[in-house]
Every structure is written in C-alpha cells, then in structure tokens.
C-alpha cells in the first residue's frame, strides 16, 4: 500500500478502497482485546454518569455563575501546569516548557493562586500535555496506544494513556506534597472538581455522538483514539494542526 496509490481521482475512490482493503490492515480498527470487559465497564460508567456525574455537572454548569466556573477552571489548570512543563521537557520542547513555567509563576502570583489567567493576556497561551501524549510523541504511531481500555469513572483510555495517568500522578508536585502532608482529602476534592469541570466540556460532544451512533461504545472508542492522536500530532499547537494532520488524512484516504 505505497503512497503512490493515493493519486487516484475521486471517482476511483471506491475501487481503490476495495483494492486497498484487501491488503491493508484496517487503520480504522483499534486494538481492543478486552472488548467484553470494556463494554461492561462502559455500561457501568454510563449508569453512574446518568445517575450522578451528569446531574451534578448540569447543575454546576447551569447554576454556578460563569465567572466562578471560569475561575475554578483556571485554578485547576494552574495546578496542572507543573505536570505539563515536565512533559514538555520530556517531549523535547524546552521553550514551551519555559513558557509553561512562566505561566505558572505569573498566574500563581498576579493571577491570585491561579484563579485568573493573566498569563494568556500577556501572550503566554495555555498548553496541556500529559505523559500519555509524551509516550505518543516518541512512539511510531499516535493512533496506536496499545489495547483500548475503559477505566472505571474515567472512561475511554488505552494502555499508553493509563500508564500516562499513573506517571503524571507520581510526578505531580501537588500530589506528592498532598500525600506527604497527609491531606489526601484535598487531592480527592481536586480530582472531583477536575472531573466535573472536564465533564462540562464533553457534555455536548458525547450527547451528539450517542444520538448519532448505532454503537455508542464503538463510536466513542474511535473518537477518543482520533482525538488523542490529533493532540499528540499537534503538540497542543493549533498552528501546526493542518499540516500535521495531513499524514492522518492520508491514511483516511487510503482506506476509502
């Protein structure tokens, strides 16, 4: 399946697809050897979401004043900056790491412990990198994160990103300090708020996927894998987006 085959006209896409499908391993397919337990966990998560997470999130979104929500988002993001900086160093991006450290210092002081994102106004745009992305940056294919996993409460993941979560937790200065000082309850509070904050941002997208899919589990699995691959490719820099995505898009074209 050399790239020379890409130069067909659009009319030939169907025919090309038939040919390529015969010799290519389906790029759209994601390694999911644990599909049965994953689907089981997915169902449990859906129930917990319906009964607890979603109602709490919707209440939070609709009743807490917008400036308060923004301040909380900023605060949580600020707590995440050290992990992002470490990962940026690990990704070979020292300049971006320096910017992230700068953001952290500015926002923690002038931004009143991170409640206000004054760094963005100063031209230091936020970035977010986790160890799963770092592993992906150094791996051959951002699409391949190892076997797909559905984690309890946390939802879609894969071996790469689950390892990443663990490592991020181990290297996070705030988590380390929290455990040393025996104030684990603060870490739990932070985790809960992070979860609610993140859920407000996925409400619409997930509702849309659920409504427009026949197999919600499979659609989420695909969307999650693509999203993570895109984040790894662009390294959080939207300016790199299109060109970096051409590679991915080429793969798409190959299967058509």
């Amino acid at each position: 399946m050399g790239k020379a085959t890409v130069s067909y006209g659009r009319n030939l896409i169907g025919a090309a697809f038939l040919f390529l499908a015969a010799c290519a391993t389906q790029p759209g397919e994601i390694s999911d050897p644990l599909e049965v337990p994953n689907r089981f966990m997915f169902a449990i998560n859906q129930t917990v979401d319906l009964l607890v997470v979603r109602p709490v999130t919707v209440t939070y979104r609709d009743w807490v004043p917008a400036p308060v929500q923004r301040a909380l988002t900023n605060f949580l993001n600020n707590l995440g900056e050290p992990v992002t900086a470490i990962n940026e160093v690990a990704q070979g991006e020292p300049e971006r790491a320096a910017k992230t450290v700068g953001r952290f210092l500015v926002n923690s002081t002038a931004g009143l412990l991170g409640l206000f994102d004054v760094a963005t106004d100063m031209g230091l745009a936020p970035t977010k990198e986790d160890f799963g992305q770092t592993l992906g940056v150094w791996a051959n294919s951002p699409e391949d994160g190892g076997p797909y996993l559905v984690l309890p409460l946390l939802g879609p993941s894969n071996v790469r990103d689950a390892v990443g979560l663990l490592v991020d937790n181990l290297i996070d200065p705030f988590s380390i300090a929290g455990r040393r000082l025996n104030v684990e309850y603060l870490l739990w509070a932070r985790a809960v708020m992070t979860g609610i904050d993140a859920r407000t941002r996925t409400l619409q997208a997930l509702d849309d996927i659920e409504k427009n899919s026949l197999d919600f589990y499979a659609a989420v699995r695909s969307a999650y894998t693509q999203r993570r691959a895109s984040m790894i490719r662009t390294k959080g820099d939207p300016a790199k987006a299109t060109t970096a995505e051409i590679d991915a898009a080429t793969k798409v074209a190959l299967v058509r």
Partner: protein
Amino acid sequence: MVRATIDSAAVTTSYRAPIPSQFGSKLPAMKSSLARRPLGLRVIAIIGLLLMSAAPARAQDAGAFIDGVARQVLDMLRQGVSDSQREATLRSVLRTNFDLPSMGRAALGNYWSKTTPDQQKRYLAAIESAEVRAYSDRLRQYGGQSLKVVRQTPGPGGATLVDSQIVQPGGQQVVRLVWEVRKEGGRFLVTDVSIEGVSMVLTRRSDFNAYISRNGGNVEPLIAELERRAGK
C-alpha cells in the same frame, strides 16, 4: 499568533469587505445561557459567516466555497425558521455541497462491496436523512457562533483541507474544524469534516463496522436500523 497572521493576510483578499466582521455579535443569541455553554458538536461547522482566506489560487476557492455554504446556513438561522423548514433547507444544502454518497460508501468500509445495489440505494437514502437530522439537531440551538476560515492546505488525493475555527460570541473558547474538500466536475464538494481532530467519516465507519459485526456480519440490520431512525 494565528489571529495576527489571518488579519494581515485578510487584507489581500476580497472576502473581508462584503462581510461585516462583527456580524456574529449582532446575531440574536436565542438564549443567553446557551451562549456561554461549552462548545461541542452542536455548534458545528456550517454555522459560519466570516471568511478570511490566506492561501492563493485553488485553496482560496475552497475556502470561499466553505464560506458560501456557511453563509447560506447562517442566513437561514438568522431568519428563525421552523424545525421542518430548517430540515428542508439543510437537506438541500447537504445534497448540493456534500458528497454524501462518497461519505456513505467510506462509512460502510469493507461492507460496501457485500451489499446489493438495492441495499446500497436504501442505505444511501437512510444515511442522507440521518445526516440531515444530525445537522438540524445541532443547529437548533444556535447561539451566535461564527466560523472563521484560517487557511487551506493541499490534502491527500487532490483534496484541499480547509482549516477553520468556530468562534464563540464571548470569544473565549475555540473549536478547530477541518473540512476535506474535493473538486468534482468543476464544483467543490465536502467529503469529510473533522472536529478537533475527530473525523466524522472515520467515526461513522468504526460505528457501522462494529454494528455490522455484532449482527453476524450482515449489513441488512444496519440499513433497517438507519431506516427506522430516518422514519421517526
């Protein structure tokens, strides 16, 4: 940084002049609470109006095409149409500007060859209704978002990737949207849309393939289910 590039580039294009750049803020925000809602698929793609094209020649044409589609949809939304009117307009917009048969074929993947011509016909009809319904749903709660074309780059197989952003009226969050556009018989057609890196066609294909293999590798249950949903 991106914005600065766009603004300087926009001076050289002819698209800026006819479109009031603050148009988005004049649009009726249907419910104020909606305007501050986090972004998702609902504020998708075609809610666009502002095009600032940065690349020359072929690519610029593709950007203008996306701008045209976006404006057509936006004009409709501004008039405040009924559900059925919106659906009818979107059906014609999708039919003329999206290559739905090619998207449908791609979404079926391997299984396309295993379906009879009759099944293919029914499938394509059902998928068209599904798309129309999906877009119509997303645009029901329009909150004054605008679409800004950032740039165009050559894509695979002669396609052009039109990079755009959905901008919220508040201006805080931005959703990245890439349109895969191909020229067919002298006119442009959209062959895929990616939202924050998630391709609609790829996601559909995973979804459909899973559904088919869970139904013993038969395409018929998928078509029947799509038809059932289209008929609702």
